[in-house]
């Protein structure tokens, strides 16, 4: 022991002269750091997808309905309720939150006597920290989810415009698995899908590469999976939670990824072909998606089904309205052939009202499902539209599908902004024409698929927005036609509707084309129904208004498809068919549930 060792410890006294370290008021003086992981806050952006609940390893989060909050497609109406007897403040829920609505405040003190009090619904319950602006937020450069969609290989516009080859090439297996992996399996999309397909489940089967299960899941709600995997309007993707911070999951193409990997020969083996016969029959008018869907589910239930189709081939608008670069014929056949292979009889070239009467159908069948679709082009309602060079979009598509030459010429104007207009424009491009599309509102208002709009532009169609056709005039040549159109200004609607285009009379244009293709919508044709029956049935705007289970006032008659719903797309028609099949089964005394 040295003297130094004895004296050295007294050095401690030196610190006695330092400023004290003590916090005067420890609780008030020390708020959490700006990044502190304190108590939860939830903003109005929350849609109740429940992803926070699924990542919570402590089961600290419950999804509960909140009073005064209405659910709507894309919002489940549930909100996360936290149990602070479980939470560990890892903030994984914040990191995973698909809408970035969930945050943590830097508030950290909660003391009470009641152990059951530590439950609260973040954002809606009045908590003292709700106005807190500091606290943990996910860093912009840190992700637990994959926000970018896996790109699908597609024909370039230079190539695609040259023929009718399918543009979207479909995902490879690896791509499909990667895309499916992005899904958080919240199920928000199921409510929005008109057919309520079990989207998360079949996406999971893509991820697991289990295509047999996937196919079975698809056929539970949709017998046109190959078709819908290509041309569905994919309303599901508009509400996909992944779309809030990145791209929505390519749900449509993942459906296609399943059917692309199951050859048609294996359908009967996977889906089963044991169909019984219960002795009753149902007549279906129209072999479009609605009719064939009803036929499929009715056949599965054991009904004998006869489909009456005016055209020579089945598929309806899918066949004659959708060009083959979007939906190749063989893919449509894949779906239809399987349905027919179950014993559904299709009578082609049989127009109800011409070849067979509506009454005879009612007499021969126990029930009738009507899905004739909209096959009458709407009129432009402007002067001169009866000019022979004014063609209808449907007619053009129909001719092309039947292998006929629609005779459109080299310079074409398409009027309209829907999918039929886009199809007509793109088909015309493929026939070698120079195409201008005239649409009365803005491009973002177009009802057509954004993809379609984008691709048609890429293929060289000129889109002229805010252009209102005013008059059709004969041109110098008989093979040509002149259209007069005026520019429009968008005027906000006083009643809160979407902005209206208003014609600017001083800015008129006149242009001559080889033909004008009108594609502004279609109407239905139901003259074949006797008028005394029609009186029993409810109509609105020349469309059916079906009751529960697609039933009409004429008890034996069920309706569906474009002529009975406002959405007018394939997937809605398919659901109508499925729903009607349930209804018919109920009506004919099947199971009470059905």
């Amino acid at each position, binding site marked *: 022991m040295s003297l130094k060792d004895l004296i050295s410890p007294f050095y401690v006294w030196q610190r006695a002269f330092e400023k004290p370290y003590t916090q005067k008021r420890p609780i008030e003086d020390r708020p959490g750091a700006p990044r502190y992981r304190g108590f939860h806050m939830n903003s109005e952006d929350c849609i109740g*997808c429940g992803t926070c609940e699924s990542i919570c390893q402590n089961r600290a989060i419950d*999804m509960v309905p909140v009073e005064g909050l209405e659910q709507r497609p894309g919002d489940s109406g*549930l909100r996360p309720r936290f149990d602070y007897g479980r939470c560990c403040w890892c903030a994984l829920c914040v990191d995973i939150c698909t809408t970035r609505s969930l945050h943590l405040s830097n508030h950290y003190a909660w003391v009470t006597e009641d152990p059951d009090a530590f439950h609260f619904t973040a954002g809606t319950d009045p908590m003292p920290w709700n106005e807190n602006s500091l606290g943990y937020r996910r860093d912009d450069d840190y992700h637990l989810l994959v926000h970018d969609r896996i790109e699908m290989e597609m024909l370039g516009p230079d190539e695609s415009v040259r023929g009718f080859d399918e543009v979207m090439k479909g995902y490879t297996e690896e791509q499909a698995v990667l895309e499916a992996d992005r899904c958080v399996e919240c199920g*928000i999309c*199921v409510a929005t899908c008109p057919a309520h397909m079990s989207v998360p489940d079949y996406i999971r089967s893509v991820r697991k590469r289990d295509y047999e299960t996937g196919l079975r899941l698809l056929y539970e709600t949709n*017998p046109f999976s190959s078709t819908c995997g290509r041309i569905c309007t994919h309303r599901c993707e508009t509400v996909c939670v992944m779309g809030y911070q990145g791209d929505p999951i390519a749900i449509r193409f993942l459906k296609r990824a399943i059917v692309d990997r199951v050859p048609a020969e294996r359908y009967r083996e996977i*889906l089963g072909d044991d169909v019984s016969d219960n002795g009753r029959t149902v007549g279906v008018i129209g072999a479009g998606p609605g009719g064939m869907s009803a036929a499929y589910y009715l056949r599965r239930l054991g009904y004998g089904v006869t489909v009456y189709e005016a055209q020579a081939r089945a598929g309806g608008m899918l066949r004659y309205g959708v060009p083959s670069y979007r939906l190749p014929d063989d893919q449509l056949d894949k779906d239809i052939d399987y349905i027919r292979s179950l014993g559904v009889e299709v009578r082609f070239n049989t127009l109800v009202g011409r070849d067979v009467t509506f009454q005879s159908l009612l007499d021969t069948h126990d029930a009738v499902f009507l899905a004739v679709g909209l096959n009458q082009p709407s009129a432009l309602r402007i002067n001169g539209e009866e000019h022979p060079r004014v063609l209808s979009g449907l007619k053009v598509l129909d001719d092309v599908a039947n292998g006929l030459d629609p005779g459109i010429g080299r310079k074409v104007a398409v009027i309209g902004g829907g999918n039929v207009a886009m199809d007509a424009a793109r088909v015309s491009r493929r026939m070698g024409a120079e195409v201008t599309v005239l649409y009365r509102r803005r491009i973002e208002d177009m009802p057509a698929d954004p993809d379609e709009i984008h691709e048609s532009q890429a293929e060289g169609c000129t889109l002229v927005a805010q252009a209102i056709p005013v008059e059709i005039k004969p041109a110098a040549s008989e093979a040509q036609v002149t259209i007069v159109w005026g520019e429009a200004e968008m005027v906000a609607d006083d009643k809160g509707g979407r902005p209206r285009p208003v014609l600017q009379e001083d800015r008129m244009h006149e242009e001559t084309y080889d033909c004008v293709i009108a594609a502004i919508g279609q109407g239905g044709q139901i003259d074949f129904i006797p008028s005394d029956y029609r009186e029993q049935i409810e109509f609105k705007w020349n469309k059916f208004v079906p009751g529960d289970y697609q039933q009409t006032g004429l008890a034996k008659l069920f309706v569906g498809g474009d002529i009975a719903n406002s959405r007018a797309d394939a997937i809605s028609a398919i659901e109508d068919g*499925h729903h009607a099949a*349930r209804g018919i089964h109920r009506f004919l005394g099947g199971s009470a549930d059905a």
Partner: protein
Amino acid sequence: MSTATDLLERFGTNYRISEVNEQKADLTFFKVPKDQAVRLLRELRDDAGYTHLAFLTNIDYIERGIFTLNYMLHNYDTRHTLGMHVDLDRDNAEMESIHNMWAQAATYQRELREMYGIRFPGSPRLDDDFCLEGWDQIPPMRKEFDTAAFSLARFYSRDGRGTEDPREHMKQQLYPTHTDDAPEGGN
């Protein structure tokens, strides 16, 4: 690094070494039969320089009916680690004790006894409580033991919880007539 391959070649003549897996440059896994394991351990320690037993643990392959013991040995000179696997019968798991080779092995063996029910005859204080006290169930680390179910059954959970699945909730609220699932096609 060729240490692992050299080494396993050297011992390969006397021991039935299988499933050699060079995970990375300084880490190799291999498997030996149960009856040769302790002899090989001793040789590795005394002749090959693997003097450090990092740990001893067990992996439960319930679907194959085996336990796989893993002895993790480290050689400080070559800085190489060896993971030696030994398969045991899951229903009658017993292994020779190595408490005489490494002092801490006795503790690991106690833990394995308690957590998996593996017997190491001769290992000191083997049957004393280690982590658990008054444990009356099957050894908890065995895969067939469901800890969540046990916890709920014995320790209970606080009331007042209940959750809704967004998908089911929306189904009931937004399209109730579509919820019946009787006539389903496909399967």
